[in-house]
């Protein structure tokens, strides 16, 4: 109980901090005024930029952590990452295509990245169903690597062959960031994410069984194939949407579930909600660092999560081995 309370307080603090601090230093009074009144520059910065940005980072971080936790149980490997299954390659290819050929639409890049990720998900799914017939975790991983590498190769080919040096900037977009956060983006992501998140949270008990392995899960009453399909699709769709909104942000989906398993429990009924809140808070903090540490320059948030996530992960690894 105290742990839940602590988590709630910490989350509220992180959210507040995310709104209070930014690349423009604002006095706490101005931030408060900006939140409740509708006028002035502080109001524009706080309401139109910071609040949606912080909320979007929270949702995306939570979504990535939940997807990561679910996929780790699905493939029974604590090192699985939400991007492992070919998603990032597909999204990158889509983004590069949009930047190379996409015309004037301001949403061309995210839409193309989303489409690319979905195609990759569908291909990986097809491949592993044909090969293993039962969505075998190992086949799924291999299919993910195959599709991801192929998409990455296509992406490199387009960048090498294209006569637009600006395509190199596609990598900047892929590195991830929340600079394009706004209320409409937030609303779109939130509405979209509700269903996959609900599917994953409701599958918590099933995930406990899948984590035991296929035969034990079956004997305990899990409809393994249906469960795997549902979890794979929900986690992939959630990750695809986050790639489309803010590029590829690594390590949230890896480190957060791992930390919660160690510090709290591997039971998915608790693990998933705690990982959601923890992942959200982690990403809000990472984004806060990204936009303030070198201001006015902003770092790609994926760089920050890696810089924080890798040492943290190494530490956890040492501890769990000791």
């Amino acid at each position, binding site marked *: 109980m105290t742990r839940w309370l602590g988590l709630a307080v910490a989350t509220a603090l992180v959210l507040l901090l995310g709104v209070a601090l930014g690349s423009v230093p604002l006095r706490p009074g101005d931030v408060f005024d900006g939140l409740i009144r509708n006028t002035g520059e502080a109001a524009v910065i706080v309401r139109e930029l910071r609040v949606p940005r912080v909320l979007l980072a929270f949702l995306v971080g939570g979504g990535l952590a939940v997807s990561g936790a679910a996929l780790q149980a699905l493939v029974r490997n604590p090192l699985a990452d939400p991007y492992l299954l070919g998603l990032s390659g597909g999204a990158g290819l889509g983004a590069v295509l949009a930047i190379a050929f996409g015309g004037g639409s301001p949403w061309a890049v995210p839409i193309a990245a989303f489409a690319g990720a979905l195609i990759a998900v569908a291909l990986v799914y097809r491949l592993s169903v044909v090969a293993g017939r039962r969505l075998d975790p190992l086949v799924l991983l291999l299919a993910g690597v195959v599709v991801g590498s192929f998409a990455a190769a296509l992406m490199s080919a387009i960048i090498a062959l294209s006569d637009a040096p600006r395509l190199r900037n596609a990598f900047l977009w892929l590195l991830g960031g929340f600079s394009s956060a706004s209320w409409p983006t937030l609303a779109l992501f939130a509405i979209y994410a509700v269903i996959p998140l609900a599917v994953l949270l409701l599958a918590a008990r099933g995930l406990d069984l899948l984590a035991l392995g296929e035969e034990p899960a079956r004997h305990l*009453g899990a409809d393994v194939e249906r469960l795997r399909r549902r979890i794979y699709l929900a986690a992939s769709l959630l990750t695809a949407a986050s790639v489309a909104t803010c590029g590829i942000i690594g390590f949230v989906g890896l480190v957060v579930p791992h930390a919660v398993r160690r510090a709290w429990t591997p039971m998915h009924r608790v693990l998933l909600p705690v990982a959601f809140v923890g992942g959200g808070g982690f990403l809000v903090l990472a984004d806060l660092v990204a936009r303030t540490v070198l201001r006015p320059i902003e770092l790609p948030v994926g760089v920050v999560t890696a810089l924080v996530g890798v040492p943290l992960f190494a530490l956890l690894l040492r501890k769990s081995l000791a």
Partner: protein
Amino acid sequence: MLACHDLVLRYRNATRPAVGGVSLAVNAGELVCVTGPNGSGKSTLLRGMLGLLHSERGTATIDDKDVCQWEPANLAAAVGVVPQREEITFPLRVRETVLLGRYARLGPLGAVGLEDRAAVERALIRCDVAQFADRRVDQLSGGEWQRVRVARALAGEPRALVLDEPTMSLDVRHEMEMFELVRELADQGLAALIITHGLNLAARFADRILLMSDGHTAALGTPAEVLIEPILSRVFQWPVAVTTTPDGAPQVMPLRRPTGAGAI
């Protein structure tokens, strides 16, 4: 309760069936052991009887209903299974692990009710693991872990219990404890099926033994009917002697190769 009739099972692309027409029935209150050499089709038979493999011929039924017609959750509620191997990827605590045995009976949204908690506690006590219910399962000894897995199977309050080599790599005490427990459960009305290499354990605890050889039934009957020297020597291709314990159960003793004949 658990039954198969003339069951033929074949793995994909295999030229020969792994199980070639076996019939067996395990009734409530009965403990049946399946034994036989490595590769004789024991585990395959089990998979077929539990509906994990589709039969090529013959039937596998539970409560006289084709096992493949059962909903996974209903099947799990009726039959508790302790599979042979299980790797621990994400170590839960003992009580949490046992609770997973209630999966098929949980309420909507996976809610755990009072009845579920009571069943878990009963299973913990039943298998003598309650004293370390809050320990993580990766910190248990082999014998403790096996008992936890039996408790998990019992938590679902099944009418049949199936164990695949439950005493593999257990010492004498834990081996005996495991069989005593299953025997007790069978006496209380459970239908129990154990796959085992322990001929002498089967001899002392089983009501009936199915001896398999090459996917076929080599012998089926009471221990005294099945565990006789000519059958065992032929099936295991090794000379054995059969004696009797003071309580009347046959005991199988494999013989040393006669000196001088070792140069085969």
